[in-house]
């Protein structure tokens, strides 16, 4: 941010007198606002799309009353959530009860910071990007567990316990499934990982097609990440048919809204990470976005990135409306007996591949055959 502030001060003579820290702070706040607006918009639109997709899949129409074809439904929902009475149960632990939604929301929102939206569109290109995402999304566990405990409701408590067990267990396969991308790029920075998938090979530069192990690791990541973010079929902490609504059963109004937003935020983070690590990120197929003028290059790459990410989100919704829910012991079995060993085998496979073939992927090798 400081570098950007400095270049901005050099470019705009008006800012010459302003101290550097002030411009930097201003830029940070601006970036935060932009990302917050993007996150909230996505979460709103995401909820509408989710309901529309549900409608289409279930031979219904879905929301179509608010605005033309129902496109303003999310605004109506948002207004409703804000205006609803905020109820705190009499026997709840008031402080923890109030705190929990913020943990969950911050955990999911903070991850947006390192999402590489475009060539230069990233709030903070941390050199430990993936590590950071894994760390901050873990904050969600604390929030969910707090919500379950503080509600003083047995169903909520069960939901919170399930969530804690589930999220902690699934972090391992999620992390292990992402490491192949890190190995290929040789960096933990998400921008570096995206850049490593560029090149004129088009979609074949993607980590998805790099080698058979990274191909499987994409699907393993996608499955495990759905579980980590409590998406159906792994939505056990919520499980409306068993635990009524799980950890957020006692929440209402905007506090519930924060849980709700965080759920969609998580959805996007999963899709964005899958896109960045395996599907080429913002790389435009057969084209170097970085060679274009700054504004066009960024816009183009942003469009490509969002298109890929939204496709992933759609697939998640599609899965959500197809599959039944697992039982809690089956969920654990799936994590420890299937996903963890498989991701380890994959990791081993990728490492060996990179060692044996000197970091070259199958498409690169085929390309080199033809010169």
């Amino acid at each position, binding site marked *: 941010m400081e570098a950007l502030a400095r270049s901005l001060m050099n470019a705009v003579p008006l800012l010459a007198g302003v101290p550097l820290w002030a411009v930097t702070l201003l830029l940070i706040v601006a970036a935060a606002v932009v990302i917050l607006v993007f996150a909230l918009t996505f979460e709103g639109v995401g909820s509408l799309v989710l309901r529309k997709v549900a409608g289409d899949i*279930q031979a219904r129409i879905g929301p179509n009353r608010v605005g033309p074809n129902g496109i303003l439904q999310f605004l109506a929902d948002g207004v409703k959530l804000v205006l609803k009475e905020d109820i705190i149960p009499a026997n709840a632990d008031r402080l923890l009860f109030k705190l929990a939604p913020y943990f969950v929301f911050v955990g999911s929102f903070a991850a947006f910071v390192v999402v590489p939206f475009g060539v230069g569109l990233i709030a903070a290109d941390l050199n430990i990007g993936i590590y950071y995402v894994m760390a901050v999304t873990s904050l969600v566990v604390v929030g969910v567990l707090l919500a379950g405990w503080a509600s003083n409701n047995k169903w909520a408590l069960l939901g919170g316990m399930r969530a804690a067990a589930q999220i902690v267990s699934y972090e391992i396969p999620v992390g292990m499934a992402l490491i192949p991308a890190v190995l290929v790029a040789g960096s933990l920075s998400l921008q570096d990982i995206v850049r490593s998938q560029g090149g004129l090979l088009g979609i074949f530069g993607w980590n998805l097609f790099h080698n058979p192990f990274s191909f499987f690791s994409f699907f393993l990541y996608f499955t495990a990440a759905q579980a980590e973010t409590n998406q159906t079929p792994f939505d056990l902490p919520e*499980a409306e048919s068993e635990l009524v609504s799980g950890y957020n059963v006692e929440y209402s109004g905007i506090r519930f809204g924060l849980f709700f937003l965080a759920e969609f935020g998580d959805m996007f983070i999963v899709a964005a990470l899958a896109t960045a690590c395996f599907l080429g990120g913002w790389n435009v197929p057969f084209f170097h976005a970085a060679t274009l003028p700054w504004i066009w290059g960024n816009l183009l790459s942003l469009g490509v990135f969002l298109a890929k990410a939204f496709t992933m989100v759609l697939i998640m919704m599609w899965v959500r*409306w*197809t*599959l*039944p829910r*697992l039982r809690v*012991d089956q969920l654990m079995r799936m994590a420890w007996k299937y996903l963890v060993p498989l991701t380890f085998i994959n990791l081993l496979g990728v490492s060996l591949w990179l060692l044996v073939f000197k970091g070259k992927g199958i498409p690169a090798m085929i390309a080199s055959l033809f010169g």
Partner: protein
Amino acid sequence: MTVRTDALPTQEMTINMGPQHPSTHGVLRVILTTDGEVVTRAVPDVGYLHRGLEKIGERVTYAQFMPFTDRLDYLAAMNCNCAWAWAVEKLAKIEVPERAEYLRVIVCELNRISSHLIAFGSYTADMGAFTPFLYAIRERERVNDLFEMLCGNRLTYNYARVGGVSGDAPPGFLEKTKEFLDYFEPKLDEYNNLISYNKIFVHRLANVAVIPAEEAVAYGLTGPNLRGSGVPFDLRKDEPYSVYPKFDFKVCVGTGERGTPGDCFDRYMVRINEMRESVRIVRQAVARIPDGPVMAKVPRLFKPPAGEAYFRSECPRGETGIYLISDGSVNPFRLKIRTGSFVAMNIFEKVTRGLMIADIVAVIGSLDIILPEIDR
């Protein structure tokens, strides 16, 4: 499946499941004693929907009780209607015209389909897949359209009458029924592909709450719950009534297809397969329905001779038995209704011991209980 709980000393927790809970299919209350996620004891508490139907039956005339039988099992009102009509006819020894019997069989089997559709749909919804539920509801609406055409109502039909049915099939009804059957039969395969054999779904149901055949008989289970345990007992075959002997159909039993015979998956599959058999019965009935009157001569002031009668019929949720004592007056002296769901509730506590909380939902769904039948 039992889970070892003695390894770690923990404290038990009592949870109230219901009477307001999405998966208890109404106002059933289950008092769960759990050790973490493992249920050590689940005691059903029934009675929230008690309306005193049997007493009402003793206060109204035989004809007047017909609309109340709709409320006995509102998802299979036609079956309850016809059961009442058959019971009173048995008591008063009334000969019913054959066309009326055919119409009754058609509506009973159509209602069996729609009832099993709800059982299937709400079961999948309980398991977390909401989409098949809406598909099931969509098909059920078609059955409701047929019934609306036939008797004017969509849920509480009040179609059967003592001595026949309230009205002949309107023109186009039989054709529309055939159309529905042609539309519906392939949907069953679709359901199987969509959810029945889904790995997660199978894992949730197979080997859960196994009821061995002897136990099912000992506890008096009937209907799909008994057949799910592998006992081929179907009143339509074993104690034939109405015109059922004229039709060719198979009694579906649980075979332990994906687990142990008598598990939740078997009970679920029996219902899916029964829908197919019901389609076969309706096809035959529609093809062979004779012409003629649909109502026998029954005096307006209907007074059956003094005596008693017990009639049992195969309803979607098991045997519905109606025991009637007449003292020769216009209303029954005593009425007792035996329902499948109430009996199925008896075994609930036994089979749910040591299961997970999520399995409790699976067991309730697989027994396909309906609360008005339990509480009456």
